[in-house]
């Protein structure tokens, strides 16, 4: 139920944004987040953007994960 989808903001009109992912567009209410801009990724849950995705943190997590792959520990 807490499932939410990361979507890209396409247009903003007052408190309502049109967001897109994989060609699907939906309206999302922005009353819960500040400073949102076109092309930001936001997490959509039940018609509301509930949080913005932090691109630099996302990169950091991915870097950590890729690092695991690069060095890793080989199983027996």
């Amino acid at each position, binding site marked *: 139920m*807490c499932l939410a989808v*990361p979507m890209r903001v396409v247009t903003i009109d007052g408190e309502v944004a049109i967001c897109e992912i994989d060609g699907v567009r939906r309206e999302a209410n922005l009353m819960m*987040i500040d400073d949102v801009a076109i092309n930001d*990724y936001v997490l959509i849950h039940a*018609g509301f953007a509930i*949080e913005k995705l932090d691109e630099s943190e996302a990169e950091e997590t991915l870097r950590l994960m890729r690092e695991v792959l690069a060095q*890793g520990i080989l199983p027996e």
Partner: protein
Amino acid sequence: MKHASEYRDPAIARKLVAEITALVAAYPGVMTLMEVCGTHTMAIHQHGIRALMPAQIRLISGPGCPVCVTPIDYVDHAIALSRRPQTIIATFGDMMRVPGSSSNLLREKARGADVRIVYSPLDAVALAEKNPQVTIVFLGIGFETTAPTIAGSILEAQRRGLKNYFVLGAHKTMPTPMQVLAADPELQVSGFLAPAHVSAIIGADAYETLVANCHIPCVVTGFEPLDVLLGIRMLAEQIIAGEAKVEIEYSRLVRREGNRKAQQLLAQVFVPNDARWRGIGIIPNSGLDFRPEYGDFDAAVQLPVTVEESIEPVGCRCGDILKGKIAPQDCPLFARRCTPQDPVGACMVSSEGTCAAAYKYGDHD
């Protein structure tokens, strides 16, 4: 899908599993790691993560499915409201087949009740605006991820001057039940994979009291398979080091302080209450009630109905499942009398229920 598919790389997953296995190889006991979010339950089953774990790590599911923890008398109440004339029940789809004492909403719909599945509570507000002569009741369930969207719908209904939009509320809030479960000697929880999107709202700092009181590690973890594996590794590292702290694996979304605007929205419309959790009982400060200023939107107060006396289904062990005390396979009804097609208990109904996930992904004979 950006911000999702990157976290599903099987090669990295294999390496992470190998790392976790090596990390706990010398650990003398078993670490019991509990998740308390239906989406984690689904992710762990869907990606077969339990089967990848070494013998030292046991993954269990707690009360993370909001539909499953909703007491049966709430369903009976919703059914009674659906029988009112000129009334539309608007709900998230998960609630439709949850068994009440003698019926469910799907059956009531077949009998003529107007029950509609909506994607957003704002769709229910739109229904109210379009049908001014009809009473719209939205079934307000869910944790802190969902509760602000319902608070938002109430503010929107107020802004539009609607007098026919009501919410039957049974919201639950998170950190307190984790404390109850952490203190349960029968469970022996060693660490929590703390919920992803609930934490986006309440913030990772919300678990500090739990960690301090119970000396139990908490890692706020995302829902993709690599997130879950990384979260497990972070928990195992803390447990081996004898530490207990709050860490964030899901840092691309969750901040220490959470989403202040959503928190304000919750505080504006709701006030914490002692809520009853199916299978667990009353937990102080674990639910949300309407603030008196928003009492006009409270269906339980504004739309009196007679609700049948609630009867729990015989033999159903949802209560023990929700506490993580037994696995679905340990319930005598699982996959026999209780299936997703014909569910007895709530854990089999919601797609995020522990039993539904175990059934769907083949953890049964």
